[in-house]
């Protein structure tokens, strides 16, 4: 008798879907944006100054023959698209979104870096959403995914689209691991999208998901994730 075998899931996909599930349970709504972005949504609206290094060809994939197009370097562009639509529809905050997506950086690959990788963007705007809420939310998320025995800490950082900006580390199995960046959405970004920054505030975060996959499943290298090799689907 032949038993019907179920196909095997990709570990990164498991992480993405688990992540989305945790945030959906909290009340976040899923948002998706295009991988092929325009410079406005990828940089201008996110408060990147004209001569920011991220706008250099060395770091970002620009599209030939289309001066205005790039492969998005972060899912933060989804923030902008969502907020523009939201403001246009006449709705008022609060809103909370979670946006998983593939992003691209033009850099040499090694065991911890790929030219394409997944980020999960979170954005929560309301009247009183604070830095303490950010810490609580991230902490809750990592405990859900990796277990109660995790600890979160913030360090100062800089991103043009958040202020304050932080980098956060996670203590997991006795070691501190750098997980990603976050912060309070810069008032300029809210204003550009038509959200009154005098009245509303909130946080955004955008950690990479490969890092989470690698530490959860104890993987030595992220590169096999994109080689179409089913030996990777062990989880």
């Amino acid at each position, binding site marked *: 008798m032949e038993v019907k*075998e*179920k*196909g*095997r899931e*990709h570990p990164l*996909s*498991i992480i993405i*879907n*688990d992540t989305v*599930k945790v945030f*959906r349970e*909290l*009340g976040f*709504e*899923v948002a*998706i944006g*295009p*991988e*092929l972005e325009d410079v406005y949504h990828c940089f201008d609206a996110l408060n990147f100054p*004209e*001569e920011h290094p991220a706008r250099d060809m*060395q770091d970002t*994939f*620009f*599209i*030939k023959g289309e001066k205005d197009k790039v492969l998005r370097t972060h899912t933060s562009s989804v923030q902008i698209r969502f907020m523009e639509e939201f403001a246009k529809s006449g709705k008022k905050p*609060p809103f909370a979104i979670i946006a998983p997506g593939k992003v691209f950086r*033009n*850099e*040499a690959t090694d065991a911890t870096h790929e*030219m*394409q990788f997944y980020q999960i963007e979170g954005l*929560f705007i309301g009247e009183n959403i604070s830095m*303490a*809420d950010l*810490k609580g*939310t991230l*902490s809750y998320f990592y405990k859900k995914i990796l277990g109660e025995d995790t600890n979160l*800490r*913030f*360090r*100062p*950082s*800089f991103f043009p689209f958040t202020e304050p*900006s932080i*980098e956060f580390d996670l203590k997991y199995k006795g070691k501190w691991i750098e997980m990603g960046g976050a912060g*309070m959405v*810069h*008032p300029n970004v809210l204003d550009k999208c038509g959200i009154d920054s005098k009245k509303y505030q909130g946080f955004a975060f955008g950690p990479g998901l490969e890092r989470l996959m690698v530490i959860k*499943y104890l993987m030595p*290298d992220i590169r096999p994730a*994109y*080689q*179409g*090799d*089913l*030996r990777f*689907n*062990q*989880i």
Partner: protein
Amino acid sequence: MKISYNWLQNYFEEKLPTPEVISDGIIFHSFEVDEFETIGNDTIFDIKILPDRAHDCLSHWGIAKEISAIFDLKITSQNGFSKQINALQERLLKESSKEPSLKTQLKIEIQDDKCLRYMGRIVRDVKVGESPEWLKEKLKCIGQKSINNIVDVANFIMFDLGQPIHCFDLDKLTSEKLIIRNGKIGESITTLDKREINLDDSILVIADEKYPLAIAGIKGGTRAEVDNSTKNIVIEVANFNHTTTRKTAKKINIQTDAVKRYENEISPELCFITMEAISELIYSLASGELEDIIDVYPNKAKERLINITIEYINKRLGSDFSGREIESVWSKLKFIFEENSGEYKIQVPYLRLDLIGEHDLTEEVIRVMGYDKLVEKLPEIKINDSETNNTYNKMLLVREKLLNDGYSEVMTYSFRDKGDVEVLASATGKNFLRNNISDGLKESIKLNTLNLPLLDMKEVKVFEIGTVFLKNGGIMNVAYGDKKGVVEMSLDKFVKEKMPDDFTPNTIVEENKKSKPFKMWSSYPFISRDIAVWVPESEGNETLKNILQENGTDLLIKKPYLFDEFTKEGRTSFAYRLVFQSYKKTLTDEEVNPIMDNITKKISSLGWEVR
């Protein structure tokens, strides 16, 4: 940037905490510290200055101010060298400061507003020579070479205060007049590193009345180079536009420590302090007679005032800081402030160009207080009409359907050798974005078919859902297939045509899924052997499986995989696949045959027949 512990100590009377404590302080209140290492009796930190602080922290002074705020230590020296100068030199210095400096003939003319400020000072009769040991050592510890006392002092002050300086040999100028102007087509300059640069009108230069002498803010020229026979010098302490300096440096492909500072926009207010410091140090190490400073500063930097309330800070941070705590931060950062019933009027120090509004000051409060002071809280989300993104839902549904149909999920690269959309430059050499998933999927099927014995699968069936890039933009596709072929269509089309109406996904993710640790595979080839055995029908396959497992040795890298079974005339045939592989080398038949022989012997001894 490389920062020396002993150099920092020169700013403080009090003994600094240990390098470990300093490093942690910087990491949790200011910047990432890549590493710190002990060199001789000093410790050198490698600090990654954040881009928004590069204008005021690419210097020992900048870091000393951070340490002062972090550890509440008082800065007692205006620079990092006063303590190095011995008593005699100090006396000389005191005497000289009593005398007014000499009248000067130096003239400075700014012809282009790319120069925001230009301070010049002639020092006559300097003694060019070797630098003292302490100076050589300070430069060496941050990776700089010693050249002569004049050049070294200029270099040292830049790493001390963050302001680039240039010195010209006065006697090599055609006149005692410096002109800051744009280059001219046809003009050229030989830089100190002996490169010939052709000028044009986008390149700002420092010139005398005939020749260009230096590329403003970027590199000096050989024409007025200070050398061992130099007697009289002109010190330049100037400020140039950050954007044009960056663009010019890029255009002529010269990157220097000066460019790094100018392109991050330093404050023109830094010039005065720097001119004082370098004058003092040159006088102390090379003597000479200081003439009056000429200072051309057309548009003085404006003082910035920011109003901020305690309420704003606590609302944004979700904290409960008191006025006293917040004021302690202002004091530690040397902000001048007035308080009026919970509202502060802050006078931002000139050098802190990054502080524009209340949100910036809020960051100052929490980073100085420490992010560990934040109390985590989970916000409640009260959104009534939260909806789920349609595309994401479709992706989940289609994924579940294909998994149920036995297709395994893969991810392949978005970059290919050909396609409809091309990127300008790529680190990998694959410059096109995929216009289909099928090509990648076919490669995946080929690879996995070769590896089939390793996969415990009957056949290779894979799918991928992802963006493909067409001439008119990106579209979400789904592709699935096996060795017979691959089908690809848009996600929307799949949902419309292939999804049964009554399809309901299982719970998408099982809660607390028990995961076994991931095991990286060997990159050496494997050998697979099939073995089929007749076993009495009543026996089952347990014993057989155990024999295979126990005698397979360490080289048997997978559990025996049962790929066929049937019963006939009271006997059952079990067919197993055994896969052998080493993590250290390529296996040969000579290594696998004895293992198989042994297994066959064990099975035969039970009276079972190996087919």
